[in-house]
């Protein structure tokens, strides 16, 4: 039994650490992540030849401290992940619960909207929107949030249908509860464990999507240290200094892996049968 809970604990550890770094990291960062020092460009990480303890993870092409930028990058990733799932979770859950509760034409309409959303190529449309509206943190969050709600909708619809077939919903209806009361007080609390699992899946996807957008130059604008942007900026130097892209990439990999582990662990622990 212990071993089965391992993903949950490991995931919670990684995500918890990332949350703490996002919250308090910038206070502890050794340097200002925006201060350039062209005399100290490309100092390698301290364990490599030529590295120094003053810059544990080295410096970038403008001489900015890499560790400090990485730490601020964690805040950007977590901020984007959380804001996106709040937005997409609200949209998706609202649609899914309505479809699942009312059924019939309402449900058909919801499923049709979901089909349309699935047909839209996410990365392409996100790139187009950001290039037209202009890149900023807010635009990226809104764009990703408005595109990634379909998993919430599909899962909350299925869960709502299951819950609505149960006796206590009929009992609430017989007791004279209003529809809105049934949805908010009876249905929602009983599908929330499914939603938490989907939230972790979507948060991971949102973080990867932001990194890809920033990498392509249409995400978080410089000089903000988004991990995707750090990889894009290091790309021209990667043949000679591979650590410039390796460090932010590994950070991204660990964070997303942690979120997915947490999601898998929660699914087992909460007994939510959800597709991914």
């Amino acid at each position, binding site marked *: 039994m212990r071993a089965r809970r391992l993903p949950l604990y490991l995931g919670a550890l990684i995500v918890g650490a990332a949350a703490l770094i996002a919250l308090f990291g910038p206070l502890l960062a050794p340097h200002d992540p925006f201060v350039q020092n062209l005399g100290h460009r490309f100092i390698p990480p301290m364990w490599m030849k030529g590295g120094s303890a003053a810059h544990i993870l080295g410096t970038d092409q403008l001489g900015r401290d890499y560790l400090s930028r990485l730490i601020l990058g964690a805040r950007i990733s977590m901020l984007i992940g959380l804001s996106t799932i709040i937005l997409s979770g609200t949209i998706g859950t609202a649609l899914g619960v309505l479809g699942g509760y009312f059924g019939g034409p309402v449900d058909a309409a919801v499923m*049709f909207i979901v*089909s*349309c959303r*699935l*047909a*839209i*190529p*996410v*990365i*392409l*449309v996100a*790139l*187009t*929107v950001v*290039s*037209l*509206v202009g890149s900023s943190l807010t635009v990226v969050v809104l764009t990703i949030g408005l595109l990634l709600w379909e998993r919430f909708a599909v899962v909350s619809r299925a869960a709502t249908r299951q819950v609505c077939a149960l006796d206590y919903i009929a009992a609430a209806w017989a007791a004279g509860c209003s529809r809105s009361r049934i949805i908010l007080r009876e249905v929602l609390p009983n599908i929330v464990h499914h939603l938490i699992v989907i939230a972790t899946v979507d948060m*991971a996807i949102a973080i*990867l999507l932001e*990194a*890809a957008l920033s*990498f*392509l*130059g*249409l995400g978080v604008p410089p000089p903000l240290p988004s991990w*995707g942007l750090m*990889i894009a900026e290091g*790309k021209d130097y*990667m*043949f000679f200094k*591979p650590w410039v*892209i*390796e460090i932010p*990439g590994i950070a*991204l*990999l660990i964070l*997303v*892996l942690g979120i*997915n*582990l947490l999601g*898998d662990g929660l699914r087992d622990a909460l007994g939510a049968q959800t597709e*991914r």
Partner: protein
Amino acid sequence: MLRYAARSALLAFLVCLTVLVASFALTRVSGNLAINIAGPEATPQTIARIQHQLGLDRPLPVQFFDWADRAAHGDLGESFLFHEKVSHLIATHFPVTFTLGMLGIAIAVAVAIPLGILAALNEGSGIDVAVGFVALAGQAVPSFWLGLLLIIWFGVDLHWLPIAGAATWKGYILPAFVLSFVAIPVMLRMTRGGMVDAMRADYVRTARAKGLSRGSIVLKHAFRNAAMPVVAVSAVQLGFILGGSVVVEVVFNVRGVGYLAWESIGKGDFPVVQAVVLLFAIIFVVLTLLSDLIGAALDPRLRGG
């Protein structure tokens, strides 16, 4: 079955129409295209001239029906920048993306199915855990980053494969491999789950009782049943792979439709962007429809509802 097919096809057609409207609205609502094309220093006269040339000064509904009418006849307009027919641009770029996508899904199938079976047959063992970790890691690795690392390892350190472009067949290997990561985790989990269920099913117990060999039980009995949903889902996964081709084509500098779209977005060439969004949407809808129909043909229970 026929009724189900007709209903699904009608829905798919309606989805395509909606995406048509959406992809048109996307580029018109979010800003003045003429300003984007003319650049920030253009005079109002230049902007007005460009607007008139491109027909952007007409009322929106007129522009839409004109565009949709032409699109329905296969004329996707002319690129603002390349001064070439959009349909021609897409026709020349699409084969590259399609080849990449097919290779990607082929690699995904070749990796995911054997690994999924292996994990299911050793359920709960170290192998199962290791395969599960492969799926998790595959889901967590950013595709553009994996692409860059592979370029460093295979292109520069080992000199085995070209670092950019798809001039020869060797140029397709790395991008197709990276694209396959989009589909591997899902297909791996489905194969494993299906096989675990199948190996517990009564017909497998019967086959065992009949004294059939283990290989015959696994391949002829269990896998045939477990493979059905995986085959159906691989069509949908191909759609996701094509959608993800933008990033991979840019990383590897491969000139497919994804690269074309990225270039066009950067230059404000929106007839091309609209057309590529529409193309990907139609491909996805058709693949989903195929997947549904295959599923329904194989399993009549899926036809209801």
